[in-house]
């Protein structure tokens, strides 16, 4: 299934709302188109290897409870970048 930018943002908001146990409507967002260094969007999980090809996608910055969180997405995936020091594939 191919994700659109809107799909990816929605998925990210939903994930963060669940993690923080907050209302998704209270989360502020900003999204930018960008290139990531590899096919894990520069956010590989432990024990994950990825194609070393520049990959176009979206950097999704969410703001909740006064803190900033970064998600990275492309048409194939959404990832949470360095959440408490670790990367997660959503």
């Amino acid at each position: 299934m191919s994700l659109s930018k809107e799909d990816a943002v929605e998925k990210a908001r939903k994930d963060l709302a669940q993690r923080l146990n907050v209302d998704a409507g209270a989360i502020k967002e900003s999204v930018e188109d960008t290139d990531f260094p590899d096919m894990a969007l520069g956010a590989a999980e432990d024990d994950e290897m990825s194609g070393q090809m520049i990959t176009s996608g979206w950097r999704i910055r969410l703001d909740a409870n006064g803190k900033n969180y970064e998600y990275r997405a492309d048409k194939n995936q959404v990832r949470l970048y360095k959440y408490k020091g670790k990367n997660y594939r959503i």
Partner: protein
Amino acid sequence: MNRNNILIHLALAVVLILIAAFAGQLNRWRTQWKSHVRIIPAAEKKRATTSTDIALAESRLKGQAEILVKFKPGVSQAAIDALTSRFNDRVEDRIENAPGWESIDDQDDIDPNLAVAQYLAQPEVEYAEPNYAIELDAVEAALPPIHPSDPRFEDQWALANSGQRGGKQGADISAMHAWLTTTGSDKVVVAVLDSGVDYTHEDLAPNMWKRPASIAPYQDDQLGTIEDEDGFNAIDNAGDPMDENGHGTHCAGIIGAEGGNNVGITGVNWKVRIMPLKFMNAGGFGTTKDAIEAINYVIDRKKAGVNVRIISASWGGTQRSRALQDVIQKAYENDILFVAAAGNSTVNNDRSPHYPSSYPNVLSVAALDRHDQLAKFSNYGVKSVAVAAPGVDILSTWLGNSYEEKSGTSMATPVVSGIAALIVAENPRISVDQLKKRLLASTDPIVALKGKTATGGRVNAAKALQ
């Protein structure tokens, strides 16, 4: 002796003195010529170590301006322009990193030796020499390079950079001259360890590996028997390595899209056998465990009699795995060269290793752009990255009989794997050690790579086959 006779003898003496002086000058020019002009053999070019040496070596690439002139310090650009204009020449390029050197285009097309003599006679000039093409031996250089019939070949700057789209002429792997020696062999198998390969792609299908009937299906103690007619899928532990992402198909095309078939592009090899291995999913990522399974498969097939000599690995991560390192070592011990992407995070791998490219016995590859500059994203490392190859805006095969341009050390890696396959095609009994050494010893020195990779050079297929 009357006054007239004295005058005649004086005139004759002056003429004789002038002739002698002119002959002496000619001799000096000849001496200068012999001492200053060096046709640098490939072996010597490899020893170029300073930025100036490398810049000069680069400037001698085929098809560039005809003479190189070094002006004395303090000579203004206006004076240089006036002098070149007087000789009906033109400054083609100022050689960065080699202060004072100008590359001169002789618009009269006179003998370069005479042009050099003209400049050497000028007080503003410290040194001048012809711009020799030096990469190839004379016989090979005299032959017309091979131009494939593939309609999109003109877009493949990595193979033949004519300056298209503003690139630097000659900043390529000299594929057209390499093909004078060999265009590859269907006896050589390259394993593309990736997201699989679209083995039905019209430009790849003729070059895909098929398990010969004489070799038994793959047997694994844990996985059982796998019908591996088309390769291996380590994700599903199955025999179908169809690519669902495109990345593996792109890498496969760089190594061996069929050449000279009037379709799409050509690979570094016109003929080869691509063994597709799938361990990355539709997203382009996979696990270390599946990578290990796939490498084990390659080793098994090698032992079973498949002439697989290269594993091309356009992937990586920062997590170290002793198990992955060990299986790569095992592949090396089985005469299989493991070529891997250096990574795309603009970091120094000597300080922050990237795996598998930073393991021992792996040939690590950085990426260059069409201007012979290290790609802005490319990792590097004078100890941990061996060579560089074109890796920006690389056109290759994609899913569904299509073609796309992609960038990354992912794209540079199969360029090197492809050259390795050409070497094996020409030297079937070459050992993995010799193969690796041949690749390292045949690079073109590049200023931008000095202190960035172990060789400081861009791979050159033609030299690798000499």
